[in-house]
């Protein structure tokens, strides 16, 4: 009998049914997760879980999930359990992101909105939450305007501004590697603001920009830009890409042998990108926003171990930390002020210092009062082909304080207007 079952031919209909059943399981399973607790405090994450930024968005979500688990273990927020509701905004469609923000606020009545890897979405969702009077912590959208010209009373940001990243790198590059720079910049707002940041520093120090190439987003062939850069004969070639663009650009720079003749550097670099590079292309000087290998900083080991458990044994990246720190920030301030009132919490977060078990950085990490920007440490270093362990792809040379590299509040263009 049993042989019959095994050997029975599987018909087309059966395959289709099985497919539908597996599909239905995907849709129905999250309902089980939703049934936690009685009157939970809801935290909504509106982030990029599909498309170009899917990996980054999911890593932020994972960090946030870990924080929610820990918060619930320690008694929740105001004694109530915490649930995380995640909404996919896609990577490019800001209309959907706005829609999901409305959904979280109006239907699910969340107390906090966490968003988004995509800067445009962070700006648009900031408008929605400010109108609705809901707390909003931006995890990973770097554009300056979020805590600059478009800042709001209820919006706080964990990740750095692009200007903080360029300021932290520029002095080192200028002093150590030379004063003639060539930029290879992705042609959209993120790349442009990074380049402007470096140009401002270059002007201050008295260096020269020997040229710049704008590359369209999603470029796969960088050869013409690399040839131009070579011809300009700079001291440093600066790559300002992210994600797959960064991977393609660096691979080709190595194939051209540029790393032997010029110094390669840039601003923001992420572990996700270095992981995608072959060992010989892990080159150049960069800034990381958080790094997992900090042997002398307390609590980092525990965090790394906890994420490894959730992440198939892989180490956390800066994105995990963004989600983790953002979620904990809200729990800490709400428990300190004993309320969920957005206005009280926003006032309370001005100047708020993260405790070491959340900050996971050597220096004092706090939200600046004037623009609601977190002042973390930045990790300047260089990529390495092979580290002490396979995941150790970055060597930190110097840790700088965010407050030393951030432009003063008066230069950010932020004027916070509190609701009447």
């Amino acid at each position, binding site marked *: 009998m049993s042989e019959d079952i095994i050997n029975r031919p599987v018909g087309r209909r059966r395959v289709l049914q099985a497919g539908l059943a597996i*599909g239905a399981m*995907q*849709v*129905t399973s*999250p309902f089980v997760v939703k049934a936690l607790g009685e009157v939970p405090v809801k935290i909504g994450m509106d982030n990029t*879980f*599909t498309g170009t930024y*899917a990996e980054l968005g*999911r890593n932020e979500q994972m960090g946030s999930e870990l924080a929610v688990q820990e918060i619930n273990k320690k008694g929740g927020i105001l004694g109530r359990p915490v649930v995380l*509701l*995640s*909404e*996919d905004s896609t990577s*490019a*469609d*800001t*209309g*959907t992101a*706005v*829609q*999901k923000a*409305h*959904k979280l606020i*109006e*239907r699910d009545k969340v107390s906090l909105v966490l968003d988004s890897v995509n*800067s*445009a979405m962070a*700006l*648009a969702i*900031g*408008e*929605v939450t400010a*109108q609705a009077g809901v707390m909003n912590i931006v995890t990973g959208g770097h*554009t300056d*305007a979020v805590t600059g*010209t*478009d800042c709001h009373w209820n919006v706080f940001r964990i990740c750095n501004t692009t200007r903080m990243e360029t300021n932290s790198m520029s002095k080192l590059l200028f002093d150590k590697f030379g004063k003639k720079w060539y930029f290879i910049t992705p*042609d*959209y*707002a*993120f790349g*442009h603001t990074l380049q402007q940041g470096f140009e401002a520093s270059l002007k201050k120090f008295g260096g020269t920009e020997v040229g710049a190439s704008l590359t369209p*987003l999603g470029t796969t062939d960088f050869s013409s830009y690399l040839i131009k850069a070579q011809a300009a004969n700079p001291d440093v070639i600066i790559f300002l890409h992210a994600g797959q663009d960064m991977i393609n650009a660096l691979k080709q720079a190595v194939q051209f042998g540029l790393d032997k003749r010029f110094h390669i550097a840039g601003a923001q670099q992420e572990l996700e990108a270095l992981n995608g590079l072959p060992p010989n292309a892990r080159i150049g000087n960069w800034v990381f926003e958080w790094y997992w290998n900090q042997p002398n900083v307390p609590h980092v080991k525990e965090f790394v171990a906890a994420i490894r458990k959730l992440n198939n044994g892989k180490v956390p990246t800066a994105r995990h930390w963004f989600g983790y720190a953002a979620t904990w920030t809200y729990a800490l301030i709400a428990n300190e002020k004993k309320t969920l009132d957005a206005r009280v919490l926003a006032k309370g977060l001005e100047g708020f210092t993260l405790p070491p078990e959340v900050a996971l950085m050597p220096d004092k990490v706090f939200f600046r009062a004037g623009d609601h920007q977190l002042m973390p440490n930045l990790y300047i270093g260089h990529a390495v082909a092979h580290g002490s362990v396979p995941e150790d792809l970055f060597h930190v040379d110097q840790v700088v304080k965010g407050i030393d590299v951030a432009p003063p509040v008066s230069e950010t263009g932020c004027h916070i207007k509190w609701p009447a």
Partner: protein
Amino acid sequence: MDRQYQKYVGDFIIWSVLLTMPLWLHLVGGYTPLGTRVLIMALAAMALNFLLGYTGVLSFGHAAYFGLGAYGAGLTIKYLIPNTLAGMGVGLIVGIVAAAIIGLLIIRLRGIYFAMVTIAFGQVFYFIAYRWNNITGGDDGLSGWSRQPIDLGFFKIDILHDEKAFYYFVLFFFAISVAIMAAILRSPFGRTLLAIRENERRARFLGIPIDRHVWMSWLISCTFVSLAGTLYALLNNFADPHDLRWDQSGDFVMMAVLGGMRSFWGPLIGAAMFVVLQDYVSSMTSNWMSFIGLFFVLVVLFCPRGVLGIIRRRQVQ
């Protein structure tokens, strides 16, 4: 006589559902802005269907005029006059002017060539919005503005803070646009468009100036898509280069096909299904796109005339 009666019942049901939507939407797990989004997408899809379903011309670049409306409204409110209606007016005019000029260049093309050229022109506007950082905000989108309360002198409507008021504001424009489109389709001009759809060569032999008719149909279609675009920008308080991109055009075509492009209300049903399905399924799984794709495949396989096509077939039987 019976068909006529059924048609009135259908219209009555649709209008009463639309009119009462904000009252019951939260009971079924929805929320008012979702209803507003359905209306706006439906307007865009119905406008596209004016060209696709009633003239038989496929455009894959309607997002361009949708986005021009959105940016026109946003830029006006942000930089020129903080007035919602003025913004909508400018957005609409920008969309119409662009459509009129581009229409003249492309009406001689048919079929796949027409579709390709509309994509090309659409992408031109997309890249302008994407690259012109100082004005449009580039990839970051146009933010830092919001729709303003409507001041009628004797009466003020706060569409900014009251989501329901904004829903009815959108419904008002939706109703006007739909009425105009329906009236045009019933006129001799509308009948001529149907004739072109059914057999273009025969219509040409009858002495109908085909190109001029297609151009008019294209212009009418783009006008209402631009209007939908201005409303979309007001809904989000944001304009985004993605609004102009070819995949947004593809979404409009999908909505029209899902609902049934041979029926007047088909795109409304299609848009409602598309928006609601996307909203619900994407909360449950990040593989939601597979489900929408699967749904689309099933509809195309089993009811090629869209969901409304099934009902109509039943009636005929």
